[in-house]
């Protein structure tokens, strides 16, 4: 297969999806030309420029770093169609009107490069029908590419072929989407709403139906259909408000119009109460009023019975909560079915009907059960897809129960379950997942791109790669993947949330020593989060016992572990995903190289608990400031301390791996990986490459010029203004002054020359001094109890 290269992309339509798809493309270093209609007055690119302004303001940000927006060129269909000729990928994301899309395709066709891929982001229209709008010569290059909102954060992309799409094109595009954009690709069939929206919208309709059947409030239903059953916090009705009730109605209408023969067709209708809300202009979040309404600090909810808003009162039956806490899914579902509480019956009903629907339609809408389940995980944020939930709950027992409800007229639809349901004991196995259309087992995709995922997301029944343990203690495991590279070891932290306690610190040093003796490279890797920092509980215990000398020694051990990472005789590569806070951040900063997932949230947040980074974090920045200053005319390290001081004093956490580079936690030479499943593979390869290139650690720097007392005073000037302006507390001031002192190399003359050990001593002593302060102890205690920072 020849290489697939996207040098530049075009996105047609600068609406919510188009603009955010463009943002994600530039996140991945693909320059984009973003098109829309010419503005009627003023700047002809006004519509696109407005969308670009919106991208910068939007939170959570679609952009990995704000400056990326500069790589999106604004264009309009009237003046700039010739720019399409240089685009290798053209994604259409205009409004869902067939005639508009037909017109646009006709207009752009003459300008498209012969090798470019053209793809529509339609969420419901027929891809085959859309392809008819293109000249025949271009149809082999056309397919559906359905992103989910928001495209940076939602993992799913559905790829839909037409009858004419060249198969190798889809393979190339899938590989590129998975590795370059970090997406989870599901090959969908060209059926209305494809896979995720077809099942997901039905699920919402089923929840709406049963809400009324069981006479439950929308607030109670949201409490029931959120994290309690492995679905997102916004659950059902909050999601509808966020999506927009009018948009929701539009999607339902599409199903009503395009699926006339569906056995559930009668339910593809907008409930009267929903139509009434829309008619009143209560469209959800965008109108600040929908199913929920915020009044001051209070959230009020629309009440079906009174047709008015009332205070939200959520009261979940204790017996139901007990059932849902049961970790055995077989028992849990059995109890759910037999519990007579309406809330339990409601939950069983929505599960039953989604099981029924998914099984019935599997053959029509998806190639196999894995695709359907992944579509729901990645497109709707469910922790398990419906078919794997069913399988986990005991396939045959649930099948019989669903059948019994169908037969008794309790299910939403009387259509019989497909015969295959009763001839199997599940849909997922180690060999693959069931394809109802082929009546066969489908193994995982053989595309080479998936070889980069050593630990891909698994469905029920699939076995993970085990690896071979070399050594382990309570804190870490040192292991290898002999099939991939038996000379590069992996060290993984075992503690909850990967906090860095004594066992981890001891284990890490031992692992490094062993790796130095027996391996060529070392990768620090485990699932997200990378590490939530030091083990505060251990710290609190020592404070309570008044063991401050022991605490200082403990901090010293932590620093030594960090130094061991930095000066290991073999390359140590940190593979980072999710949160890497405090000590976790310091560990990764000390590694020879970092491979970070795009969704990495990295920061030195110690100030939040009244402490300073003392695991070498301040020290690393002080060294770096000196190194950078030495390359400038001014030779003034404070120039480089100033931005870092603000970052640490404000406990700023990066909002992406790319932003972690801007903040200095990650270096420009480090790698940002878009698909977190590839992280370990890339890190192993990096370690291998460094080892092959003859890695040796740098010498510990000496004669480090520090910003000293003037640097500290400069920071104090900022603090004085913030404190007097009521923006920080007196204790914030003190903690931040300690941060400044550590970054500036201590209370020494400006320009003093120090070494690494000095900087670590300064950090350590300041850290312990803060620990002795009651206000720091209050902060730590509060954070341990609530997970939130205390501003005292």
């Amino acid at each position, binding site marked *: 297969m020849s290489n697939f290269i996207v040098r530049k992309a075009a996105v047609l339509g600068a609406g919510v999806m188009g603009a955010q798809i463009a943002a994600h493309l530039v996140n991945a270093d693909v320059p984009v030309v973003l098109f829309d209609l010419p503005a009627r007055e003023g700047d002809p690119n006004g519509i696109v420029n407005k969308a670009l302004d919106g991208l910068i303001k939007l939170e959570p940000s679609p952009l990995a770093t704000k400056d990326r927006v500069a790589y999106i060129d604004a264009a309009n269909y009237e003046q700039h169609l010739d720019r399409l000729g240089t685009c290798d990928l053209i994604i259409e994301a205009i409004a869902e009107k067939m005639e508009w899309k037909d017109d646009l395709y006709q207009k752009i066709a003459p300008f498209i490069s012969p090798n470019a891929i053209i793809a529509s982001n339609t969420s419901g229209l027929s891809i085959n029908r859309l392809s008819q709008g293109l000249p025949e010569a271009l149809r082999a290059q056309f397919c559906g590419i359905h992103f989910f909102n928001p495209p940076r954060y939602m993992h799913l992309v559905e790829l839909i072929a037409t009858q004419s799409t060249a198969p190798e094109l889809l393979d190339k595009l899938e590989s590129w989407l998975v590795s370059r954009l970090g997406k989870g690709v599901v090959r969908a069939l060209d059926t209305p709403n494809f896979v995720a929206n077809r099942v997901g919208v039905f699920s919402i309709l089923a929840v709406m139906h049963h809400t009324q059947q069981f006479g439950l409030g929308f607030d109670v239903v949201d409490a029931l259909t959120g994290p309690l059953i492995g679905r997102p916090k916004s659950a059902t009705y909050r999601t509808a408000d966020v999506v927009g009730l009018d948009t929701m109605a539009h999607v339902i209408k599409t199903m009503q119009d395009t699926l006339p023969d569906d056995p559930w067709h009668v339910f593809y209708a907008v409930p009267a109460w929903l139509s009434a809300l829309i008619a009143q202009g209560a469209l959800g979040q965008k109108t600040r009023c929908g199913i929920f309404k915020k009044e001051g600090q209070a959230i009020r909810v629309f009440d079906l019975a009174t047709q008015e808003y009332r205070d939200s009162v959520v009261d979940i039956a204790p017996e139901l909560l007990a059932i849902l806490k049961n970790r055995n899914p077989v028992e849990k579902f059995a109890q759910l079915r037999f519990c007579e509480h309406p809330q339990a019956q409601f939950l069983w009903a929505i599960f039953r009907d989604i099981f029924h629907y998914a099984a019935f339609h599997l053959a029509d809408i998806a190639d196999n059960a894995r695709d359907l389940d992944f579509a729901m995980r990645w497109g709707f944020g469910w922790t398990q897809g419906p078919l794997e939930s069913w399988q986990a709950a005991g396939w045959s027992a649930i099948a019989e129960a669903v059948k019994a409800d169908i037969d008794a007229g309790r299910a939403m639809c009387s259509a019989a379950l497909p015969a295959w349901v009763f001839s199997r004991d599940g849909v997922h196995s180690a060999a693959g997942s069931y394809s109802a259309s082929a009546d066969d087992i489908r193994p995982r995709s053989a595309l080479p791109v998936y070889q980069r995922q050593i630990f891909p997301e698994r469905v029920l029944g699939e076995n993970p790669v085990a690896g071979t343990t070399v050594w382990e203690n309570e804190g870490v495991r040192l292991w290898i993947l002999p099939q991939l590279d038996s000379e590069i070891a992996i060290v993984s932290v075992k503690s909850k949330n990967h906090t860095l306690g004594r066992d981890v610190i001891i284990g890490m040093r031992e692992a490094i020593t062993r790796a130095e003796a027996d391996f060529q490279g070392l990768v620090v890797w485990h699932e997200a989060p990378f590490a939530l920092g030091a083990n505060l509980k251990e710290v609190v215990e020592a404070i309570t016992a008044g063991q401050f000398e022991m605490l200082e020694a403990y901090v010293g051990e932590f620093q030594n572990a960090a130094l061991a990472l930095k000066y290991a005789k073999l390359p140590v590569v940190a593979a980072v995903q999710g949160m890497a806070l405090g000590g976790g951040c310091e560990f990764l900063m000390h590694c020879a190289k970092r491979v970070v997932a795009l969704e990495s949230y990295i920061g030195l947040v110690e100030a939040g608990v009244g402490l300073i980074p003392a695991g070498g974090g301040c020290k690393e920045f002080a060294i770096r400031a000196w190194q950078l200053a030495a390359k400038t005319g001014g030779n003034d390290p404070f120039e480089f301390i100033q931005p870092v001081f603000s970052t640490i004093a404000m406990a700023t956490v990066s909002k992406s791996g790319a932003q972690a580079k801007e903040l200095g936690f990650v270096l420009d030479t480090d790698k940002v990986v878009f698909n977190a499943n590839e992280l370990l593979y890339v890190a192993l390869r990096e370690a291998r490459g460094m080892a092959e290139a003859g890695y040796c650690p740098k010498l510990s720097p000496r004669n480090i010029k520090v910003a000293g*007392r*003037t640097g500290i005073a400069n920071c*104090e*000037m900022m603090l*004085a*203004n913030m404190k*007097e*302006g009521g*923006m920080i507390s007196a204790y914030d001031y003190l903690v931040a002054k300690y941060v400044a002192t550590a970054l500036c190399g201590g209370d020494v003359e400006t320009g003093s020359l120090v070494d690494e050990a000095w900087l670590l001593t300064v950090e350590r002593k300041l850290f312990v001094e803060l620990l002795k302060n009651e206000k720091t102890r209050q902060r730590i205690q509060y954070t341990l109890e609530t997970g939130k920072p205390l501003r005292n």
Partner: protein
Amino acid sequence: MSKQIQEAYIVAATRLPVAKRKGMFGYVRPDDMLAHAIKSVMAQAPGLDPALVEDVIVGCAMPEAEQGMNVARIGLLLAGLPNTVPGITINRFCSSGVQAVADAAARIRLGEADVMVAAGTETMSLLNQMMGNKIAMNPAIFEKDENYAIAFGMGLTAEKVAAQWKISREDQDAFAVASHQKACAAIQAGHFKAEISPYPIKSHVPNLKTGEVMINDYLADTDEGPRPDSSLERLAKLKPVFSARGSVTAGNSSQMSDGAAAVLLVSEKILKQYKLKPLARFAGFAVAGVPPQIMGIGPVEAIPRVLKQTGISQQDVDWFELNEAFAAQSLAVMRTLDLDPAKVNPLGGAIALGHPLGATGAVRTATLVHGLQRTKQRYGMVTMCIGTGMGAAGLFEAMF
């Protein structure tokens, strides 16, 4: 006690239009602006031999980088003055420009000089930050409570003044809107034309499409800051910048700006010898210190001092150019001294017209002496607050 032996007269005063930070002078060097101001002011006394200029005193609040290296000397040489003319750069922050005028006048009044140029120049576009390119605070500031306020930013001091003198947010915003309205009306009426020496900007801009360097020619002849669309509603939407629960916003603070101005002063002997028509007589100048945390109140101390020094009553002063560092401090000064609002900044102030720090004193001197001439008024004053807690006031008498 006075050692004055002769009067000092202003025979020419001119300025460049004031530009918004990163605006039309975004790439213009402060030494070039200064050279233009000096050249223009000399051109307004055509018969006067430039070699007679005893010294060129230039105010600049951040004399470093593009405006470092004794920008006065560089500016005067670039202006084409003979290399026998010396130059000195002085700094008293925001009053540097009027301080230059006062120092130049003093040399003449003492009989040490007959021709002096006073000027001011400042770029806030080319320097990295408000505090210059390199901050280097003295740790001793934080060791004693009484020195702590040296570290306060100007905005924070304005908040302190607003709190102590009970200046409401509404009054500050209304003052700011009035400043814009007065400035816009003055521009409309052409009142600044006599004092402005238009500056021909020639910027070298890369044209990325053609690969050529484009030369953009533009004659800057109008102040860039005033906003005809300023309104109470708009200003009310702005959030306080310097204090979480404060009232000082970007809208009721002076604008950061670029600008330059020059004033030509001579003795009576030179007036007669070269038949020059004086615009104004320099009457007197005073500075005074106040607590750094309420630096904005500085004019309250400086104004009475200069009035006492000159024996002129406050009522006799027809025109106050009170630099609007912040609406809060302007109102506090006006209310404390009971200044007649109709006499204060009749053409608008720094909130609208901008505040190019060290140049402002010279800029507003040019505005004042031309304004007094136009309106046939006699006494006028240029006064301002100064960072770290000072006030300055210079008094001028128009000559007809």
